């Protein structure tokens, strides 16, 4: 059997798409649809046959007598604050490293390593660092005396979230650094030379040339951080097992679904989070497209 060129081309496209589309449907689209369905039932995580359709009750419960389940969402603020610090630090490092000083490649690599490190390894490193007899306290004892000890990871205290946010900054800084660094490299050196001739100092060069050129990239990273801070899971899970004050929304969700066997409620939480993420992305896109249309060059 022979095909003409047009049919052959279509078959090729179809063949190439078959595998990824199958995976997408089976592993992504189907579970998401199922998630929506489960959020409308009282599924107990075990017996699908006994699940009953309950309408929007899971959602109503979340905002009434299950309100405790939403409390961990406020802890996202620690991580959001952390990512702002992280973004500022990354931008600062990127600007410094962009000045082609000796060793800048090495520093870039060092700052990027935590990001490519295995999540468990990164978690363990920071856990050791912040333990009662860990390096953090050792270093501080040099300044404040032998008796100085901070229980950085005491999960009964809200401040432990700061420690975890710091761990998160350490881990993800490299990502921001590399992205921002890439954006910086696209700015022609001539612009800085011209500004120097006109008398702009380093600070003015940053605010008047660098910042406007990387503003969109920074905004995008901030939005990613915003979404990321809602979904924080691995850092608290690995360091404090998400106990007490350090539980995040994602951790609570998993506990609700798998330990308390309230899959319907957990699914409703997931849908809620998805809604927030979608809203954030829509806002980003709106800001992005209006800025691009108005100001930015291609």
């Amino acid at each position, binding site marked *: 059997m022979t095909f003409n060129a047009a049919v052959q081309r279509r078959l090729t496209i179809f063949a190439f798409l078959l595998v990824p589309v199958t995976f997408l449907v089976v592993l992504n689209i189907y579970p998401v649809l199922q998630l929506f369905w489960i959020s409308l039932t009282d599924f107990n995580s075990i017996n699908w046959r006994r699940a009953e359709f309950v309408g929007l009750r899971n959602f109503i419960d979340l905002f009434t007598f299950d309100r405790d389940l939403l409390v961990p969402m406020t802890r996202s603020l620690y991580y959001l604050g952390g990512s702002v610090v992280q973004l500022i630090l990354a931008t600062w490092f990127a600007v410094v490293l962009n000045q082609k000083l000796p060793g800048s490649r090495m520093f870039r690599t060092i700052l990027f390593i935590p990001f490519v490190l295995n999540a468990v390894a990164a978690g363990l490193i920071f856990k050791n660092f912040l333990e009662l007899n860990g390096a953090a306290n050792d270093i501080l004892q040099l300044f404040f005396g032998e008796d100085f000890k901070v229980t950085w990871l005491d999960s009964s205290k809200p401040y432990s979230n700061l420690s975890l946010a710091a761990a998160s900054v350490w881990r993800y800084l490299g990502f921001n650094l590399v992205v921002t660094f890439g954006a910086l490299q696209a700015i022609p050196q001539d612009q800085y*030379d*011209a500004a*120097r001739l*006109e008398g*702009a100092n380093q600070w003015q060069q940053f605010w*008047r040339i660098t910042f406007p050129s990387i503003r969109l990239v920074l905004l995008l990273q901030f939005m990613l951080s915003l979404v990321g801070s809602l979904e924080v899971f691995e850092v608290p899970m690995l360091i404090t097992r998400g106990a007490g004050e350090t539980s995040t929304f994602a951790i609570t969700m998993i506990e609700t679904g798998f330990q308390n066997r309230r899959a319907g409620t957990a699914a409703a939480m997931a849908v809620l989070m998805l809604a927030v993420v979608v809203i954030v992305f829509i806002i980003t896109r709106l800001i992005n497209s209006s800025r691009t249309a108005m100001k*930015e060059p291609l």
Partner: protein
Amino acid sequence: MSFLKLENVSKSFGTFKALDDVSFEAPAGAFVVLLGPSGCGKSTLLRLITGLTEDHDGEIYINERRVTDMDPKDRKVAMVFQSYALYPHLSVRKNISFGMEINRVPRAERDRRVAEAARALQLEPLLNRLPVQLSGGQRQRVAIGRCLVREPDLFLFDEPLSNLDAKLRHDTRVELKHLHQRLKATTVYVTHDQHEAMTLATQVVLMQDGRIVQIASPMELYARPVNRFAATFIGSPAINLIKGALGADGRFVGGGLDVAIPAGVLDGPAAARPAELGLRSESVRIARDSDAHQTIAVDYIEPTGADLYVNGKVAGQDVVVRVERTEKVRPGDHLPIRWQLDQALLFDADTGVRL
């Protein structure tokens, strides 16, 4: 009185000597063109004058001030970059007033100077546009405007026309010439294009391998180049070089020629040595009757409209001669030609120095 003065300027990058003992002076109002092939150090020299490249030997003076160790911003120089280096997120108006804002020039003064520059450069309708919305020529004018408003002692141009198409390049060149004649601003202009150098310069600094080859006015550079490099770099098509020998009797023999060199061609007395005779394509006419020096076997003809450039072989060597467009020449013809030897240039075959 010299307005711009460089004394024994040298600059190395590692072991590479980019500039080697460069000295020259230019009077106020001069249009100095730094000319040379790529890699000759002309852009490095320009950056040394701006102060953007540091650490060099020698001294630089601008307007009677020693600027050698000065910060770029204090040198009172303004530069048009090859890429124009406009700030992409700022409007034309903001681009032009950028430096004045940095230096806290009062708003009224800023507006006045921007308006003045915009008028001079016909940028008025474009003031609120962004650089992306401008054509290459318009961007160029904005970059010049940015320099004008700073009222600098010295204008610097780094290959400013190389990003423009041929037509625009010509127009912008004319505009630059007008501008210079009107403002009388002392200018240093870097280019590898001999045509730009010839048309714009009051003084050409020809460079090669980090050294100055010759400093001269364009016409002098063309008529009396110091060596073979200067003679071949300037002029299009390139000068014809005929290998041979100069005799003590003042006769040149070689390439099928045996001719007496007229008085005035040689700078000094004739001495016997291997030499090259340089003849530009226009230093020739089609010979009538029996006064022909040689015959050119025509390969192909380049018509330019005004003239014809006849490419061919004379005594086995490639030669280009310019003839009137009314001449009927065809490939394969054998054309008798007579060189105008009073316009000839003679070079030492070994050193390349003009004799």
